[in-house]
């Protein structure tokens, strides 16, 4: 994961020149405005169909952007990042079902718990490098899935489900689905903001230094394990919040969809498609991949070919555009680097 010399210079320039003006970049406001604009369309039109589609798009953006923090910025591929989505979903669901906790506090508790777990896992596991870390994250996902499968308070293999009457506390299932949508919009904005702030901060530079050469970063005074664990802990928060909201909306949680490794890989593909290590990349990647998947699934011509087409797309990216759409744009048109993170 080497960047070009020009990119490194740009990074250093950022490092020394603009630390104070973090929040003033028009790019950030533009990104936020675009997300908000899109999010408002179903609210204004009242279209529940658009709301459902945007819910999935925003969820894809959250998963891709959060995995980008550890994968794109730090260079550690977290294959099993979906584990936090599942943990967040399970903890929140458990609280809502058994203690009638409202979605918002339940999601927050779930997010903090998932981050806490990431901290505990990260301390030993992030001492590993490269493929060993990637393998360890798959192992963690599988281990947690097996644990939940046998953990009766979480419903074991049957999982847990709401009686539809639960939604009455939120003003009926119609309002509950809208609440879930507002929640996912908020989490998406939070994720993108965090991703941007990290990228533009000294902490982010530390992570990127680790990505380029961990030993050299250490010589410069960076404590790699501490940085990596912090990145991993932050990146675990957002999928957990998304999981809490998603399973609340679904009304049912089961181990297989909660800890679905394929969903993890899909978010890695979205990061690769958009451009890893950039802020906009995972957003574009998440949007494009999710729309592509839905288009293929619901298309009368391609419906049975969608998996094959997604595979070909991944091959094209790896072969021709390894830096992703945004990465390639930034590489080809250097002036864009000043505007697109």
């Amino acid at each position, binding site marked *: 994961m080497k960047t070009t010399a020009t990119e490194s210079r740009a990074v250093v320039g950022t490092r020394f020149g603009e630390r104070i003006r973090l929040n003033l970049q028009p790019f950030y406001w533009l990104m936020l405005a675009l997300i908000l604009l899109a999010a408002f369309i179903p609210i204004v039109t009242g279209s529940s169909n658009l709301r459902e589609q945007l*819910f999935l798009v925003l969820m894809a953006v959250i998963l891709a952007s959060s995995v980008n923090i550890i994968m794109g910025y730090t260079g550690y591929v977290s294959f099993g990042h979906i584990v936090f989505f599942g943990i967040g979903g399970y903890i929140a669901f458990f609280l809502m079902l058994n203690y009638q906790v409202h979605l918002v506090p339940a999601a927050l508790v779930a997010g903090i718990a998932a981050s806490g777990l990431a901290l505990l896992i990260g301390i030993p596991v992030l001492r590993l490098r490269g493929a060993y870390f990637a393998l360890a994250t798959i192992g963690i996902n599988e281990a947690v899935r097996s644990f939940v499968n046998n953990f009766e308070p979480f419903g074991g*293999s049957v999982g847990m489900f709401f009686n539809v009457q639960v939604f009455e506390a939120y003003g009926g299932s119609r309002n509950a689905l809208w609440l879930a949508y507002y929640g996912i919009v908020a989490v998406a904005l939070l994720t993108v903001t965090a991703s941007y702030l990290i990228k533009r901060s000294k902490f982010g530079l530390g992570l990127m230094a680790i990505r380029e050469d961990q030993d050299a970063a250490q010589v410069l005074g960076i404590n790699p394990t501490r940085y990596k664990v912090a990145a991993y802990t932050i990146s675990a928060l957002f999928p957990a919040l998304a999981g809490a909201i998603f399973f609340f909306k*679904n009304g049912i949680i089961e181990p297989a*969809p909660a800890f679905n490794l394929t*969903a993890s890989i899909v978010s890695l593909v979205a990061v690769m498609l958009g451009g890893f290590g950039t802020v906009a990349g995972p957003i574009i990647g998440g949007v494009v991949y999710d729309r592509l998947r839905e*288009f293929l699934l*619901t298309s009368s011509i391609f*419906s049975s070919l969608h998996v094959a087409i997604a595979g070909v797309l991944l091959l094209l990216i790896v072969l*021709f555009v390894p830096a992703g759409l945004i990465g390639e744009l930034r590489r080809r048109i250097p002036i864009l680097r000043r505007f697109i993170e």
Partner: protein
Amino acid sequence: MSHKHFRMIGLGVLWSLLIILVAACAAPASAPQPAQSGASTKPIVIGFTASQTGKLNVESKKQIQGMQLWLDDVKKAGGIKLADGTMVMPDIKFYDDESTTERVQALYTKLINEDNVDFLISPYSSGLAKAAAVVSEQNGKVMLTTGAADDATMEQGFKSTYQLYTPASRYLAGAVDLLGQMDPALKKIAIVHEKDSFSTSVANAANEYAKSKGYDVVLFEGYDTGTTDFSPFINKITAASPDAIMGGGHFQDGTTLAKQLYEKQVPVKFVALLVAPPEPKFVEIGDAANGIIGPSQWEPLVKYSPESASAANLPWYGPTVANFVSAYKAKYNEDPSYHAAGGYAAGLLLQKAIEDSGSLDAAKVQAALDKMDLLTFYGHVKFSTDAKTHGKQDAHSMVYMQWQKGADGKFVSQIVFPPEAKSADAQLRK
């Protein structure tokens, strides 16, 4: 061509894809065209998601085939007649849900709001049906669940969801009774089941039922969804030396388990597995299928008929068993399984409810479904009207089939239980 050119082409392709996608998403989706229209013909659309890919695709595909056959029959008959003489011409619209719950709610919302479907059929499997029910109930759409047998799903106070399958808790009870009838000396049962919502519900219910009947459940073990190597479980089974094995899960794992039990020559007298054995494709595992029993919602040899309906003082509706089987065979060149029959029955019962209510109004169709109590080729159907279990299947009963090797060396699927429905005596495995 240089590497640079390749990269440019690649980038071009990717951005083109992006533009096409945006354009495709912005374009209004075309509604399915009715097969025919006329002054007195009203088209309607029945929507659902199907597991065309993923682990449930075998069962789901049969369900669609059954539904497609029903659609053909209705179209041949000129539609469904309403009270005012209008003919309703149904069509179906479905999307792939990839056998996961992730997209089910979005697709059902799309079906309701964008495709403007009039009625809904559930996805295949209990987990997916639960997620779909949240959306269908919210929109007040009538949804018939077929391929979803979980009890708990239907104990939520649903108002417009109706279950066709006999609930999961009654899946293996008959197998326990059959075992006792075949040889009362066989007392040790091993229950090995897939760890998913449906199979675990069935296994838990079977465990309790077997114990209440004085059986010794020597092993109660779950395996993960997607398991392909059953050696550790087979070793445990062998160590517990049971007389009977019950359990399984869905088609793929059930077939593999049966095959590996045969390869390892596990000496049990009785094997009853969920979902897989009633599928005609199951017999492709050859001798490993011999003697395997499967609880089934329906079998081609069932004896429901207009005569049995009048004997039971019930109205009869739809094709006879023989007509359904021959039409299915003619169209698909294979025997129908219970998943296929469930698909046909879902359409048929909806048709009956529309006819009875004489209307397409959801509330009126719902009232007709509430009142429904009839016999079809699929069996006796009646839905619970109790507020807590509204829509749960009350009357339909299971049959138990067994693969038996005939004198000509060919395998035949025989109904072996209950006694009043059986086409052959059950055989113990040698």
